[in-house]
């Protein structure tokens, strides 16, 4: 076939990039052909983000070559990357919320001379771009009014408008609902047929199965291997990524829930949370799920005192509690591991140890003065116990991978001896290997008799982890699944989309 | 890296700027060390006897006189400074001039620096009559004599060796006499634009009133009646506003006495706006170029003028006497002189 003669769309060879104290990429090769989807896999911290930044011109590699269509190119700035026909869609979008979709697409491409912006033409072009990807979005809508999935499409359209032939997507589905994920995959397939090469990064192996033609796996900054999807199954994929084989995605355990520890009754706040009631027993993992916007996170925030509830009762071990702020909740032994670790869970600029210490300072203080050594000793135990991968205690939290960040957050709450632990999307953005460890930790907590409430929109996770599942829709509890092991994803989806409460 | 280069260049530029700045105005410093008995304890009069003569050379710098006025951006103070410099250099002294910009803290810090530099004498126009006190006392403690010009220092315990100022009371009297001349036998209604927070301006009004009261004494007709005393804030804007208000209240106003040029010029603007400039006579005070120009144009009738040139020279004379260990009168008041249209027409400085 012509494939063999034609040079690949993108070829990176021998890429090396080191940061002070750490080699982020070492001798990494990557090849992308037009019209194919290459999945880039690896645990967090494996070097995927660095590699993308090299392609995007944000990092300059010390060694290695980049070729496009067989021509050697130098990519030193983001502009170079754009010029080379590379469009990168980062996890955090680069859209201006106050501008319309059209304005965002053509931002930076306004006519160079002082003149009026050809609005109508732009509008037409934007519609054409959306049509090309097979979606319908009003180009005149403000970006802030668009859903996450729609914003993503705007980003893709923006890349296409700049004649991108290579599109890189970093965790594009992390914040999407299952239905939106399906839509996105459809868009990616459409791009494929148009001869665009897509580098697709995701932790969700289902998606990889569904869309990728080949996978390239990185581990610890090194290139582990590239395989065609036909030659590899899921276990092998995981084994490549973590360097060992995992028997199962979810660890096994036997549960024996005790008496009711946390009881919430008729929690209400606006139309987000309307009369939500449920119990969590000692040693029980209760899954809370629903579609995006169902009010799961809002419920958790009410229990934790992060938002003020309008009505409702929270009881712990039969005692009614007054929870007016997170401080109150923490005092009663509650903790919340937020979905948005960077925005709400960690102070990224502070060190991991400082983040760990934040809710525990009283414990490490004597005579008003903090003892850094006591703090450090306590933290060291957790570093060992839950295997937090850090260079030193003085490393800033922002430099850690998602899984390790989650572990730091977990460590700080474990140190507080929390009794009621609320996880909001505990494994979002966390790679397969680390996921398994987090699951083990959650089990361990339940076995210690704590009450665990786990919010997740990943149905396999909810089904695999929970002892009981509570499903919400539009602020209300619409159902409860008492035997998750016997339920299917379809059962959950049914509850999640219906209005009235049904018991299954 | 480009950035690094940029950074290095800017450091170099910053340093160069500094050096240039020092070179520009610091050249005097270099000179100051060049004279004097240098060399191993070289006794200047080693010949002994009455041969122990005076200064060994005409270009020898005997010391430094430091000058810190309220600000150098006011021409009044810079004229004092220029004449102070000329007179001091004539006598073999160098002058160091700094600008505290009306900030007494800055002025106090400048005094600290003068002390470190061990200057011969300090000439001060206090930015604040009270708050400058501790700085003056520090100079006292260091044995450096402090002289004031224009405004006095009112802080308790601060020792001032000498003061040169304008005789404001006498100037006020001149203004009063000018007012009588302006209104003639008919008399009339007068507005006074004052500035009560400045002691010197209060004295001007006092002197003015003394002459006016004496004029009115025993008269039944042709009385000069001060119908309003308003705050002119010593500036153009407030002078304008106060005058405009007064013109509303007193439609038959005949004349205005403003305690300085800026407020007088503001007053004229208001008078002109009311189209009364042919009738209302304005007496000002100061002698700033703008004021003199207004007199030439006939906008201001006359004004007592201060003599910053004389003040600058006089203060150096006091310092010379101090340096010679002679007795001198502690306070010198320089009389103001009246400046009229006739003077303005012959003034070579006005075009």
């Amino acid at each position: 076939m012509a494939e063999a003669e034609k040079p690949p769309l993108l070829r990176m060879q021998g890429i090396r990039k080191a940061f002070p104290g750490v080699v982020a990429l070492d001798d990494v090769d990557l090849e992308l052909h037009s019209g194919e989807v290459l999945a880039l896999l690896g645990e967090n911290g494996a070097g995927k983000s660095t590699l993308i930044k090299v392609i995007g011109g944000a990092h300059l590699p010390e060694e290695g070559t980049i070729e496009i269509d067989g021509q050697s190119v130098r990519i030193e700035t983001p502009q170079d990357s754009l010029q080379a026909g590379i469009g990168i869609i980062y996890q955090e979008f680069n859209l201006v919320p106050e501008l319309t979709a059209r304005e965002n697409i053509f931002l930076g491409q306004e006519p160079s001379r002082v003149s009026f912006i050809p609005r109508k033409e732009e509008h037409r072009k934007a519609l054409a771009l959306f049509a090309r990807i097979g979606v319908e979005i009003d180009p005149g809508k403000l970006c802030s009014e668009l859903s996450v999935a729609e914003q993503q499409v705007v980003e893709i359209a923006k890349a296409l408008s700049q004649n991108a032939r290579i599109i890189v997507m970093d965790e594009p589905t992390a914040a999407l609902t299952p239905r939106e994920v399906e839509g996105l995959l459809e868009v990616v397939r459409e791009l494929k047929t148009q001869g665009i090469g897509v580098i697709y990064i995701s932790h969700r192996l289902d998606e990889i199965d569904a869309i990728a033609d080949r996978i390239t796996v990185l581990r610890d900054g090194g290139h582990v291997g590239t395989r065609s999807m036909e030659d590899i199954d899921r276990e092998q994929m995981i084994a490549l990524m973590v360097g060992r084989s995992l028997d199962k995605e979810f660890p096994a355990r036997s549960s024996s829930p005790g008496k009711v520890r946390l009881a919430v009754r008729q929690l209400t706040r606006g139309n987000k949370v309307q009369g939500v009631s449920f119990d969590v027993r000692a040693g029980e993992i209760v899954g809370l799920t629903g579609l995006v916007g169902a009010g799961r996170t809002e419920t958790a925030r009410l229990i934790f005192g992060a938002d003020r509830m309008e009505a409702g009762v929270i009881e712990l071990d039969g005692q009614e509690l007054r929870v007016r702020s997170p401080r109150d909740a923490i005092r009663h032994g509650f903790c919340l591991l937020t979905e948005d670790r960077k925005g709400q869970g960690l102070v990224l600029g502070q060190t991991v140890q400082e983040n760990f210490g934040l809710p525990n300072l009283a414990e490490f203080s004597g005579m008003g003065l903090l003892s850094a050594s006591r703090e450090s000793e306590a933290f060291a135990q957790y570093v060992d116990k839950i295997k937090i991968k850090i260079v030193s205690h003085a490393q800033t939290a922002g430099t850690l991978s998602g899984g390790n960040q989650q572990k730091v957050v977990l460590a700080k709450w474990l140190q507080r001896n929390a009794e009621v632990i609320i996880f909001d999307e505990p494994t979002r953005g966390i790679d397969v290997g680390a996921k398994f460890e987090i699951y083990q930790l959650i089990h361990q907590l339940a076995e210690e008799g704590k009450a665990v409430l786990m919010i997740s929109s990943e149905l396999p996770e909810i089904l695999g982890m929970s002892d009981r599942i509570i499903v919400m829709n539009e602020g209300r509890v619409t159902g409860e699944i008492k035997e998750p092991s016997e339920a299917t994803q379809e059962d959950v989806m049914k509850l999640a989309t219906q209005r009235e409460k049904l018991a299954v | 890296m480009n950035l690094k280069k940029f950074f290095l260049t800017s450091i170099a530029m910053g340093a160069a700027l500094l050096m240039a700045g020092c070179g520009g105005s610091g050249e005097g410093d270099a000179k100051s060390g060049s004279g004097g008995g240098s060399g191993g304890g070289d006794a200047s009069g080693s010949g002994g006897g009455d041969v122990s003569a005076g200064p060994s050379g005409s270009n020898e710098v005997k010391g430094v006189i430091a000058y810190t006025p309220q600000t150098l951006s006011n021409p009044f103070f810079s004229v004092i400074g220029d004449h102070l410099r000329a007179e001091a250099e004539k006598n073999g002294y160098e002058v160091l001039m700094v600008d505290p910009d009306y900030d007494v803290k800055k002025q106090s810090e400048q005094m600290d620096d003068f002390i470190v530099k061990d200057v011969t004498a300090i000439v001060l126009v206090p930015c604040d009559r009270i708050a400058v006190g501790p700085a003056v006392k520090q100079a006292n403690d260091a044995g450096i004599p402090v002289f004031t010009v224009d405004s006095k220092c009112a802080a308790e315990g601060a020792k001032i060796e000498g003061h040169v100022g304008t005789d404001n009371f006498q100037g006020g009297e001149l203004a009063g006499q000018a007012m009588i001349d302006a209104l003639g036998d008919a008399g009339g209604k007068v507005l006074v634009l004052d500035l009560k927070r400045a002691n010197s301006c209060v004295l001007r009004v006092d002197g003015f009133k003394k002459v006016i009261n004496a004029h009115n004494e025993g008269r039944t007709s042709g009385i000069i009646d001060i119908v309003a005393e308003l705050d002119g804030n010593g500036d153009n804007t407030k002078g304008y506003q106060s005058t405009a208000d007064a013109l509303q209240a007193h439609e038959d106003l005949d004349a205005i006495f403003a305690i300085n040029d800026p407020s007088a010029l503001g007053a004229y603007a208001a008078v002109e706006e009311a189209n009364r400039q042919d009738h209302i006579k304005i007496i000002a005070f100061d002698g700033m170029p703008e004021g003199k120009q207004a007199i030439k144009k006939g906008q201001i009738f006359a004004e007592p003028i201060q003599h910053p040139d004389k003040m600058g020279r006089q203060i150096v004379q006091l310092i010379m006497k101090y340096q010679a260990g002679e007795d001198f009168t502690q306070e010198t008041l320089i009389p103001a002189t009246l400046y009229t249209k006739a003077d303005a027409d012959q003034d070579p400085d006005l075009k």
Partner: protein
Amino acid sequence: MTKLDFGKLFASLKALDYRKLLSDYGNVLVLLILCVVMSFATVKEQPATSPAAAEELASLVLSENGKGAQVMVLVRGGKKGAGPKFAKNLERSLEEVGLNVVANVQGSPRDSRIALRDHPKDQPLAAVVTDQHIAVFCAEQLPGLAKENPALAQSKRYSPTKHTWPVFLKIDNLRNVLKQIAVVAVIAIGMTLVIITGGIDLSVGSLIAFSAVITALSIDHLGGTDPTTSHLLLGSLAGVVACALIGMGTGGLVTVFKIPAFIVTLGVMFIARGLAFLCLEKPNGLPIGNEEAFKWLGSGADFGLHNSVVLMLILYVLAHIMMSRTSIGRYVYAVGGNPEAARLSGVPVKRVLVFVYLLCGLLAGLGGVMTASLQMSGDPKAGNLVELQVIAAVVVGGTSLAGGKGKIFGTLVGALIIGVIKNGMNLASIEGKKQDVIFGTVILIAVLVDQLKARLR
């Protein structure tokens, strides 16, 4: 042995991570460069007044006049300063070598004139030994005086040698620099905290005036023109507490009503300045009595350094301990770094914010008392635009205006940089407007270095 030490030294030098060094102490480097530049810019020939110079002068006088000759020491003098010390050294050195010091006059030229005139006419004065100032007097007046008093006819004049030394590096000047930054530096502690939380406080300059006026008024009210020490303390406390309360109010507005700190403190800035003027009848400052006691804080120097500087250093050490070793310090950083994460970790965010504004107001109040003590009056014009210097010190010190980052001692270095620039330029007699240009340039350079260190990482 030495070789080994060198080897070790070399190894340890190599082991140093220079990048980290520069990034941690970048502004210290700027400070050092500035000090060097200022030293070169202020090099000046000046009279030697050291004990050694006095000895040298004494031996010269001895060699030219012989033992037992009558000499007179004439030095310009006040209560303190170099003059009297030099006079004392001179007298001792002269007597040690066997000369007869008939008088040691420390005072004005007039005092010297009187001393010379009244010298016994029948005792020929061999020499007058003077400092540079009285040397000028003697050169001009001695011939004339000799006509009145024949004892002076043969008198020779001696004055000290000159040596070249930067004025900037004189001990007195370095002490001055510290004294001049004390107020700004003390307030900058509070400002550092405020800026670390992502806020700003524009009101501190006005609070200086407000505190100074309240202090002066309280003292006046309590003790009139002759207040006791306890009156002074109570009055000062009133000024500090008033400003702390204002700071608390600021913090309340910022947290409870969520008004941006810039706006709140802008408002407070005008209000406090206006109140300071309204509290007094005249725009002139209100003098404070009992100078001996009250000036202790501002211009007293009981520990080698000025008391205000000692206070400043103590406050910096305390603030450093607070920020690095206590919960509240940790909370301040956390609130600045990520308020939501801090809140969800149980940090009392609102209380922390109110605290930092309160502390900033309190320190501004203290700065006001220090200013009042420096000027011995409550001046409603005091502290004009000081807020900008304080902010400059904090920013030059490496604290990010975006919040979350900053070091207390960095701020002290920032304040020193600002103090050194201002002082050095004054000493180098740079004209006012040029000073502004250079001042701005150096601030930008310092911040640039700070930015650069982030890139070097």
